């Protein structure tokens, strides 16, 4: 019934259509970190009996709601604030994850839900029946928001503008509800009017066109008026306010860049490249940038490095750099390009549902890849693809798979497509951050596979089609039903592909999109001389977690003496062996050049190869057209040929990795040759350094000549006349710069027969530091010096400890003394002449931790803790925190673990909080099967509390806490806990509805039959009266009872009864009670909801039973309202009868409103 015409089956989950929203923030107080404003939503009912409007809102204190200027009652209920309500002894993660997914569902806008439920005043019912427009006006404020809106207020003298104080919106996925009430869905599009009144010295940057800036009457503030006429989802609305410096892009005047004071020269340099990215995307998409303007804002304490919103992007200020910085430049440009790609796909084109997210991430990632290829070259692109492929393969094999397009059957947990994971993938907000990162990675790789299948030309046509459809739809200002054309769906995308290309890509989609897992190939071969045939055997492992079976074509490239030949094998169910006929006779025709794949002909020394075989090397799936891992066996000389002569960088990198297992002089020579070859891709050469170090270590007893790479380095980078002194730095040639940086780091990994770093190497590195001279260099050498310190750290080997002596200065190893000398000087010099992004401090901290860990310096976290404090540069903090995390693990320190967890809860920077959990998860102090003194009940409780209620303001953080909990304790009840008093035997997955009924999402069906379920909305605990006292007794001591089997079975029985209004209400009441108890315990600190008395929602009072009670809620309603509103007091008067019964019945906490969450039992 909500279906709109001509929108390809997009069915709004809401009984109304939002067409326009006004957001007005008229006061921002940086001192108090508070925001006051209102929103006004223009909605058109799509059903006649619309009686309540559900919106999303978190953290906001809502003062007043009016619908068409009539006061409206509303209820605020957010089950995600505290996922498991009862202070249960339940501590198993399975239980939590189910409950959390249910809680998120319960407010999921894509299911038509929301935290805020507004009753349409009865006066308007007639109006609604005619489907006439409703204007919902909500006054709200935000006080010290913990998520969604981040304030950065440096504590120093001066006005807020002088201090560089700023505020910006942030969050993971749809998080706009954290800073204003809205329909926080990517699929509900509307036009926007945004107004921000800020201090005259500040600038407010937001979405759409800045129409005008007007002073307030006192001339001390000004109001920025923005209009966004392109229909946009609330989740793509953003804001940044600060004393920004403004730079109009000299190439594109509609593009404006903003940065914090003093950084303008950096901003100018950093953004000088952006226009080229614009040109590239517009050209390949044959489509103009969809918005009339674009803004980039660079802010401090960023949530993520890049966040894309409609017509603006928010970047971390740490991406800014001057022209002297080499290493950051490509990274920053990549961020800019990523942000811009998401402007087209992600902001302008939004998604229908969460399960369509992969299309957007895939397309934006794919066109970003095309930009990479054009900008950094094919080598860099292929290297990147390989890197991404390796990452996703490793992650899927570790965790059991990433599913791009989850389909959920009927909401039953049995059908959970990701049962191997410790979190639900049904919602973005329950997703582990790492999973989401890998999800994006897989999405763009799959897009590339589609391109392989249908050609790039068709691919770009499809994108162009999506964009032109959307831009036609966006210009339909008054036909909001057309706007759903701006939403992409999986089926729509696939349809477009089949229309444009005429090809059937269904098998590909089924394999990589509808199914999780990657392919694991094992390949080996034999050459049959008699038949002149290559017998290739390709096995698959499809039983391990995260794998899947691959059936279909597989390309194999064979380099023979006579040339390179491609073969397409059909991988089938039971065929393992594949015969590939060879073209060349094994008899080698001497003096003949060997033709390569790219047509080049080269001379090769063929003496190393097998005289009987014409095979030089074999590659399986060289184009990476399967998401796979290949373990292929071929002889060492074949890998060496592949490294030297194959022109594909991916093949070269594979060969290098394979050669690690062949520590022979021939491998050494091949690697050295590659290192010296200037035409070779610099990343391959860098990789060769590390492989050479490993080979040298394996060959240590037979190694001849100077340490590996030393003479090479001397030849390349040292003075001709005095080979022990390095040339003064000149980094004009970036390839050799990267090599110069990397070689010492790799050399430091060399070990002699005693497994120590050779003295010669250490002295060599120390000399590099000593003679480093950057005075004549155009570029900064901070990264180079940082890597020299990394090299020093790499040279450290475990201290020889006699009788566990205490580490003091006296027994300090003389080599270590030299190293410490350098580190001390570097670290101290950083205080006087700090390096860019404090790279040197970061390396010094890491090196000190290495010295501690190897027993040269007493293990002590205090230095790191001081560098981890708020106020240090973020990179330094992360490095220091990493050391503390490592210390916590090695020394099993409870104190440090507590210190870290406290920081997770209290640090002002969201990224740091997230990162601590991330680092603890990656380097955990203990894991679930490990005995550790740290693993105790208090820690379990603490972490449980953290994920249950302590992180409700930040989805990413909460999921991080879940990840950590999983790493430490696993899915089931932590082993360190005592057994529960009552042996609870229950299929939690099946019956979680009973255990945690407060948060069961209402089925969509409720929308269709609002009357039926809304009865129970009458909050409430007030309904108690209607039920017998005997039932009430059951509520006593819920906390202890609820675990018990008896309790559960009792309620299971009740639930199994046919759904009647009576039972509905009973459960509702029960829940209300539980909720209230929680609330009264004072653990939660929630924003009180407005004074407007809660009233019954049901439009038709169909249930005569309850009609008596309705008036309780209505009484004195109108009279009191104004008073309440102005004083913000939350008192209600009740008739005496209710008061006696339960004095807290109308406590205004959201908890009391919880009971509206009536479980839908009809299905």
């Amino acid at each position: 019934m909500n279906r709109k015409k001509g929108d390809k089956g997009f069915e709004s989950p809401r009984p109304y259509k939002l067409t326009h929203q006004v957001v007005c923030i008229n006061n921002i107080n940086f001192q108090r970190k508070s925001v006051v404003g209102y929103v006004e939503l223009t909605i058109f009912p799509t059903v006649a009996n619309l009686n309540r409007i559900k919106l999303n809102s978190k953290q906001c204190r809502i003062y007043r709601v009016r619908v068409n200027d009539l006061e409206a009652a509303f209820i605020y209920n957010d089950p995600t604030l505290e996922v498991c309500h009862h202070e249960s002894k339940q501590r198993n993660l399975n239980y939590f994850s189910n409950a959390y997914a249910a809680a998120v569902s319960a407010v999921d806008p894509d299911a038509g839900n929301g935290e805020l439920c507004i009753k349409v005043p009865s006066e308007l019912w007639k109006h609604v029946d005619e489907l006439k427009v409703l204007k919902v006006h909500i006054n709200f404020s935000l006080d010290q928001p913990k998520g969604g809106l981040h304030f950065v207020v440096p504590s120093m003298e001066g006005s807020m503008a002088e201090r560089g104080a700023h505020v910006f919106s942030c969050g993971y996925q749809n998080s706009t509800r954290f800073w204003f009430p809205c329909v926080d869905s990517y699929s509900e599009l509307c036009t926007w009017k945004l107004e921000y009144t800020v201090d005259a010295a500040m600038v407010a940057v937001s979405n759409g066109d800045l129409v005008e800036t007007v002073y307030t009457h006192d001339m001390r503030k000004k109001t920025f008026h923005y209009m966004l006429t392109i229909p946009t989802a609330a989740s793509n609305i953003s804001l940044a306010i600060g004393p920004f410096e403004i730079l109009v892009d000299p190439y594109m005047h509609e593009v404006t860049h903003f940065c914090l004071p003093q950084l303008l020269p950096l901003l100018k340099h950093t953004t000088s490249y952006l226009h080229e990215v614009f040109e590239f995307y517009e050209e390949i998409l044959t489509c103009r940038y969809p918005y009339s303007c674009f803004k980039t804002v660079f802010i401090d304490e960023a949530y993520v490095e890049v966040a894309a919103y409609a017509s603006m992007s928010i970047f971390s200020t740490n991406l800014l750099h001057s022209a002297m910085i080499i290493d950051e430049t490509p990274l920053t440009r990549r961020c800019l390009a990523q942000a811009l790609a998401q402007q087209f796909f992600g902001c302008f084109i939004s998604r229908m549902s969460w399960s369509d997210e992969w299309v957007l991430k895939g397309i934006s990632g794919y066109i970003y890849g095309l930009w990479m290829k054009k900008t950094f070259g094919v080598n860099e692109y292929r290297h990147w693809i390989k890197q991404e492929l390796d990452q996703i393969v490793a992650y899927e094999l570790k965790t059991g798979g990433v599913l791009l397009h989850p389909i959920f059957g009927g909401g039953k947990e049995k059908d959970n497509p990701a049962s191997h994971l410790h979190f639900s993938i049904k919602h973005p907000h329950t997703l582990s951050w790492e999973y989401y990162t890998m999800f994006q990675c897989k999405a763009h790789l799959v897009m590339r596979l589609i391109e392989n299948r249908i050609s790039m030309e068709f691919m770009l046509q499809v994108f162009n089609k999506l964009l032109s459809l959307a831009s036609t739809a966006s210009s339909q200002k008054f036909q909001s039903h057309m706007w759903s054309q701006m939403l992409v769906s999986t089926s729509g995308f696939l349809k477009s592909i089949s229309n444009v290309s005429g090809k059937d890509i269904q098998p590909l989609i089924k394999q990589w999109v509808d199914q999780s897992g990657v392919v694991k190939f094992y390949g080996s071969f034999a050459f049959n001389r008699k038949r002149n045939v290559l017998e290739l055997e390709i096995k698959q492992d499809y039983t391990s977690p995260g794998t899947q079976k691959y059936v279909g074509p597989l390309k194999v490239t064979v380099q023979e003496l006579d040339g390179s030949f491609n073969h397409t094998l059909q991988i089938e169910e039971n065929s393992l062996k594949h015969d590939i006929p060879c073209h060349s006779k094994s008899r080698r025709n001497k003096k003949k050049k060997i033709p390569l794949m790219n047509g080049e002909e080269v001379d090769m020394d063929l003496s190393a190869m097998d005289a009987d075989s014409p095979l030089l090397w074999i590659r399986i799936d060289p184009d990476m057209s399967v998401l796979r891992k290949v373990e292929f066996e071929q002889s060492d000389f074949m890998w060496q040929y592949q490294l030297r002569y194959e022109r594909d960088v991916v093949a070269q990198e594979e060969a290098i990795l394979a050669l690690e297992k062949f520590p022979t002089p021939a491998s050494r020579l091949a690697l050295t040759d590659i290192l010296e070859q200037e035409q070779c891709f610099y990343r391959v050469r860098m990789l060769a350094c590390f492989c050479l170090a490993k080979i040298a270590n394996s060959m240590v007893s037979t190694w001849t000549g100077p340490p590996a790479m030393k003479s090479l380095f001397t030849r390349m980078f040292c003075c001709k006349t005095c080979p022990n002194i390095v040339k003064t730095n000149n980094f004009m040639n970036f390839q050799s710069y990267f090599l110069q940086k990397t070689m010492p780091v790799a050399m430091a990994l060399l070990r002699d027969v005693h497994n120590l770093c050779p003295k010669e190497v250490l002295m060599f590195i120390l000399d590099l530091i000593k003679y480093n001279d950057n005075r004549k260099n155009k570029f900064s050498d901070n990264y180079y010096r940082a890597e020299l310190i990394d090299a020093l750290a790499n040279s450290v080997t475990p201290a020889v400890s006699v009788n566990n002596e205490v580490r003091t200065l006296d027994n300090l190893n003389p080599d270590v003394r030299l190293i410490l000398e350098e580190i001390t000087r570097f670290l101290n010099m950083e205080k006087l002449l700090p390096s860019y992004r404090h790279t040197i401090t970061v390396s010094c901290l890491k090196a000190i931790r290495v010295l501690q860990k190897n027993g040269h310096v007493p293990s002590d976290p205090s230095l790191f803790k001081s560098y981890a404090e708020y106020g240090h540069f973020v990179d330094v903090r992360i490095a220091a925190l990493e050391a503390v995390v490592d210390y916590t693990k090695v020394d099993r320190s409870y104190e440090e673990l507590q210190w870290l967890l406290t920081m997770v809860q209290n640090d002002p920077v969201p990224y740091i909080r997230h990162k601590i959990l991330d680092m603890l998860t990656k380097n955990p102090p203990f894991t679930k099967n490990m005995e550790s003194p740290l693993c105790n009940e208090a820690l379990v409780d603490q972490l449980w509390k953290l994920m249950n209620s302590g992180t409700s303001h930040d989805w990413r953080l909460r999921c991080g806490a879940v990840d950590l909990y999983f790493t430490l304790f696993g899915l089931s009840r932590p082993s360190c806990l005592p057994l529960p008093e009552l042996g609870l035997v229950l299929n939690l997955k099946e019956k979680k509805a009973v255990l945690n009924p407060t948060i069961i999402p209402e089925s969509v069906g409720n929308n269709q039959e609002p009357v039926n379920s809304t009865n129970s909305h009458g909050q409430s605990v007030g309904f108690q009266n209607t039920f017998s006292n005997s039932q009430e007794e059951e509520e006593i001591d819920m906390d202890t009872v609820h675990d018990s089997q008896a309790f559960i079975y009792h309620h299971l029985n009740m639930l199994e009864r046919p759904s009647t209004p009576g039972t509905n209400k009973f459960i509702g009441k029960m829940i209300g009670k539980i909720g209230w108890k929680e609330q009264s315990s004072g653990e939660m600190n929630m924003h009180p909801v407005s004074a407007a008395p809660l009233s019954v929602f049901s439009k038709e009072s169909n249930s005569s039973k309850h009609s008596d009670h309705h008036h309780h809620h209505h009484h004195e309603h109108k009279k009191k309202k104004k008073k309440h509103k102005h004083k913000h007091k939350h008192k209600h008067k009740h008739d005496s009868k209710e008061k006696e019964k339960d004095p807290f019945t109308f406590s205004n906490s959201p908890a009391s409103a919880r009971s509206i969450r009536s479980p839908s039992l009809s299905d």
Partner: protein
Amino acid sequence: GSKHTTTPADNYYLARRRTLQVVVSSLLTEAGFESAEKAAVETLTEMLQSYISEIGRSAKSYCEHTARTQPTLSDIVVTLVEMGFNVETLPAYAKRSQRMVITAPPVTNQPVTPKALTAGQNKPHPPHIPGHFPEFPDPHTYIKTPTYREPVSDYQVLREKAASQRRDVERALTRFMAKTGETQSLFKDDVSTFPLIAARPFTVPYLTALLPSELEMQQMEETDSSEQDDQTDTENLPLHMSTDDSGPEKENASVLQQNTSLSGSRNGEENMIDNPYLRPVKKPKIRRKK
């Protein structure tokens, strides 16, 4: 001087005074006066002395302003101009026919500089400089004597020297900083061998982390000025506000407004840019409350 003393300084003062009187008298004679009252001569002498003192004082200020210790001709010229004197008339006046040449002032207690090691022949005065003016200095003090000794050019030695010098300076400096401030130590029992300057949080940590240090800025200018042109601040100015402008002044004047006026005045061609952030802030409309 009210007190009667006979110090050398006093003598010098009296001699100067006497010379000035002679000058005034000769000028009066030149102007056609036959005689003058003592009081009138005294007054004129006083005026002349003030005038000359002011020239000296002012010239000294000008020379010190440009970080020199010796006034040059141009300092005097500027001084005279500043005092309202038409400098161009001076040469003609100096060469006037009826001018009188005054005899050398009587030398009283002139400090005799010991005749130290004269080397070479002093240059004689040109004709227009009176003989009693000081002699030219010895030629060796201003004549260039090129030397041809081989400089230390051994590359290795130079690099070695530069490296150790820098290292010594750095070490000394950081040790000094560590000694004078708070420190941290890697060894509990020893705080002096590897003293680490204590980590101090910043109020605005990103500024030091992102902005090039002064040393780097200097290097940047030295290494390649032509290629660094893009980075210079001044180029930014026409387009948008400079750093100074953005200084959050508490006045009502808007930053943006300043900015637009700047961009308007500084280069006309940029007026074409129509960016909403460069537009002036509008005055509030006066709304009448109903």
